[in-house]
C-alpha cells in the first residue's frame, strides 16, 4: 500500500490487491458450479429512437451462491440484462443458461424484484408471498404456513393480514423479496430494488439483503447505479458501458466479508470506489455540455452573498 501512494499508476490498480482471506474466498468461489451463464448474448429492440442495441456480445459465468452486481452509466442496458435473464425480454443472439438449461421465457427458477412496487394490491401479504406456491399447485395449509415463515424471515410476520397499500416502500420491497424467494428460485434478479427508498431505509435493506443471502441458498444478480451499494454487496461487479451495452470489466471486489457499513472508509473500499468512478464517469472532455458551468450573471444585490 505504501508503494501505491508513491506511484499514481499503481494506485489505479490498487483495487486488484486482495488480502489472503479475500483471495482464498475467490478461489473457493470459482470452484463452485456455474449456475448462470451468458453466451455471446446480444439484445436489440425497436424503440421510438429507432433500433437500439441494448446488449452486445456479453459473456459472463456466475457461480452458485455468488452475489453479483451489475453497474454502468444510464442506458448501458443493465436493466435489459436482468430482464433477459428473467426471460421477459427476448434475446437477438446468443443464449442464457441456468444450471446448463437454456432460458426460454420467464419461469419460477428465476425470481425477480423490480424497482417499482409490484405487489398484488388485492392480496394480503400472506397471499402475495403465497402466489408462487399457488402457481406450483401447493395445497392451502402448507403454502400458508410457508408464506408466514417467509414473512417472519423478513420481519413482517405481524403484518401478514395487511394489504400492500398499508406498508411503507421499504416494507413493500421486503415482501417482494420474500415473495420471490418463496417460489424457490435458483437465481434472484434484483433490478434497482432499493432505488426509490430514502438513504437510511436503503442502508437497512442492504443489511437485510446480505443477511438473507447468507442464510438462503440463492444466487443474486443485483442491478444498481449506486457504486457504494455495488461494492458493499457484491462478490464481483460487472461493469457495462453504454451504447451499445458491452462488458467493460468484470471485477472481484477486494473488500473482505462479512460486510459492514463502516467499511466505506477502508483503503480497499476507497480504491474500488475510485476505480469504478474512473470507469463510469471518465474525465470530462472539454466543453462537454454536462460539465460546463452555467452561464450565470449576478441577479442579486452586491453584498448579499450566500457563499
Amino acid at each position, binding site marked *: 500500500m505504501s508503494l501505491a501512494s508513491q506511484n499514481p499508476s499503481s494506485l489505479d490498480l490498487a483495487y486488484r490487491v486482495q488480502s489472503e482471506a479475500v483471495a482464498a474466498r475467490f478461489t473457493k468461489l470459482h470452484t463452485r458450479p456455474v449456475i448462470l451463464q451468458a453466451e455471446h448474448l446480444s439484445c436489440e429492440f425497436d424503440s421510438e429512437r429507432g433500433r437500439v442495441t441494448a446488449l452486445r456480445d456479453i459473456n459472463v459465468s456466475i457461480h452458485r451462491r455468488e452475489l453479483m452486481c451489475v453497474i454502468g452509466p444510464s442506458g448501458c442496458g443493465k436493466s435489459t440484462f436482468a430482464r433477459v435473464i428473467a426471460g*421477459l425480454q427476448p434475446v437477438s443472439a446468443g443464449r442464457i443458461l441456468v444450471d446448463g438449461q437454456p432460458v426460454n421465457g420467464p419461469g419460477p427458477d428465476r425470481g425477480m424484484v*423490480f424497482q*417499482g412496487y409490484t405487489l*398484488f394490491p388485492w392480496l394480503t401479504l400472506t397471499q402475495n408471498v403465497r402466489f408462487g406456491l399457488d*402457481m406450483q399447485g401447493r395445497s392451502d395449509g402448507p403454502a400458508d404456513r410457508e408464506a408466514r415463515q417467509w414473512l417472519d424471515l423478513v420481519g413482517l410476520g405481524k403484518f401478514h393480514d395487511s394489504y400492500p397499500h398499508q406498508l411503507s416502500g421499504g416494507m413493500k420491497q421486503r415482501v417482494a423479496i420474500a415473495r420471490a424467494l418463496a417460489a424457490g428460485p435458483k437465481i434472484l434478479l434484483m433490478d434497482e430494488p432499493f432505488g426509490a427508498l430514502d438513504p437510511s431505509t436503503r442502508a437497512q435493506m442492504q443489511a437485510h439483503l446480505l443477511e438473507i443471502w447468507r442464510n438462503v441458498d440463492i444466487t443474486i444478480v443485483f442491478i444498481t447505479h449506486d457504486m457504494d451499494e455495488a461494492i458493499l454487496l457484491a462478490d464481483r461487479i460487472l461493469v457495462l458501458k453504454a451504447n451499445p451495452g458491452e462488458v467493460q470489466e468484470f471485477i472481484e471486489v477486494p473488500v473482505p466479508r462479512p460486510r459492514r457499513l463502516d467499511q466505506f472508509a477502508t483503503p480497499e473500499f476507497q480504491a474500488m470506489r475510485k476505480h469504478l468512478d474512473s470507469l463510469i464517469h471518465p474525465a470530462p472532455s472539454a466543453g462537454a455540455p454536462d460539465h460546463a458551468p452555467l452561464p450565470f450573471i449576478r441577479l442579486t444585490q452586491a453584498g448579499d452573498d450566500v457563499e
Partner: protein
Amino acid sequence: MPLFAVRREPPARYRWLLWVLAFALPLAMWSAISYVPWLWHPQVKITDAGSVAWIKPGLRLDRADFQAQVTKASSAGLVPPSGEPANPLYLPPPHAVGRALYGAFTTPPTLKGDLWLHESIVMSIKTIFLGFALSSFVALPLGLLCGSYPALSRMTEPFVDFVRYMPAPAFGALMVAIFGIHLEPKIGIVFLGTFFTQVLVTAGTVRRVDPALLEAAQTLGAKRGLLVRRVILPACLPDLYNDTRILIGCAWTYLVVAEVVGVSSGITFFINQQAKYRNFDNVYAAIMIIGLIGLATDQLLSFIGARLFGWKLTRRSRTRTFFAWLVAPAKANPSSIRV
C-alpha cells in the same frame, strides 16, 4: 382555505352542501321561471274571455295574439279578454310535477287494461335488467379475453367496431320479426345497444392493467390461463365494475327506444300516453322517476363497489366479508358478519 381553488377538494363539511346545491340550483331556476311572472312567460292564460266568442277561460294564447285580440275587441267597443302571464303547457311548475309524482302512484290508469305507473316501472326495470345481464354475461368474458390475448382482439374487434356503429334502433323491425312483439325484442335492442360497446370498453380496461404486475407474476411461474384468472382479472375488477356502472346508464338510453318497438310498454308507454293527454306534469314525473332510479342504482352500486374492493380501504368492511362469504363460504369467516 378557499372553497373554489383549482384542483383542490373542498373541505369535507361543505361537500353535503354542494351535493344539495347540485339539485337545489336547477330547481331554483325552474321555480324562478315558473313563479316569477316577468321571467319568460311567453303566453297568456285567459281568465275572462270578455266578449270574444271563441276564447274560453283557461286557453293559452301567445302574448302577441292576445294583444291583437285585446286591441281588436277594444276598437270594436267590445269587452276585451283578460288573462295572466303563463308558460307553455309543456313547462309545468315544480309543484304540479310534485303533485303528479305523488298522484301517479295513487291514481288508477285512465283506460281499463292500462298499467299502473309502478307496474310500468317494474316492466321497464325487467327489460333493462335482462338485456343488460345478457350483454354482460357474454361481453365481460369476451372483453377479458380480447384484452388479454391481442391476437383474439385483432380477430374480433374490427367486426365489433363495425357493428357498434349501426344504431341499435335500426334493428327494431328485425327484432320484432325474430322475437315477436312482447318483451323479447326489447331485451334484444337493449342487448344490441350495450353489448358491442361493452366488449370494447372491457377490453380497453383489461389492457390498462399495469404490465409490471404481469411480469412479476410471470417470474413467479404464472402462465396463460392462470395469468388471466389470478392477475389480470383481479387487477382490473374494480375498473370493470365502474365501467359496468357507467354502461347501465347507456342501457337506459336504449330502453326508451326499445319500449316503442312492437307493443309499446313500460315507462315509455306511460310517458307517451300522458303526452297524448297533454298531462305534461305526469310526463315530467315519469322522466324524473327514471332519473331517480338511475341515481339510486348508481349510488347503491358505488356504495357496494367501494366496499367490495376492500383492499383499497384501510379498515375491514362487513359488506366485503359478506360477499366473500357468498362466493366462498369456507374461506371467509361467517361469524364475523354482522350485517
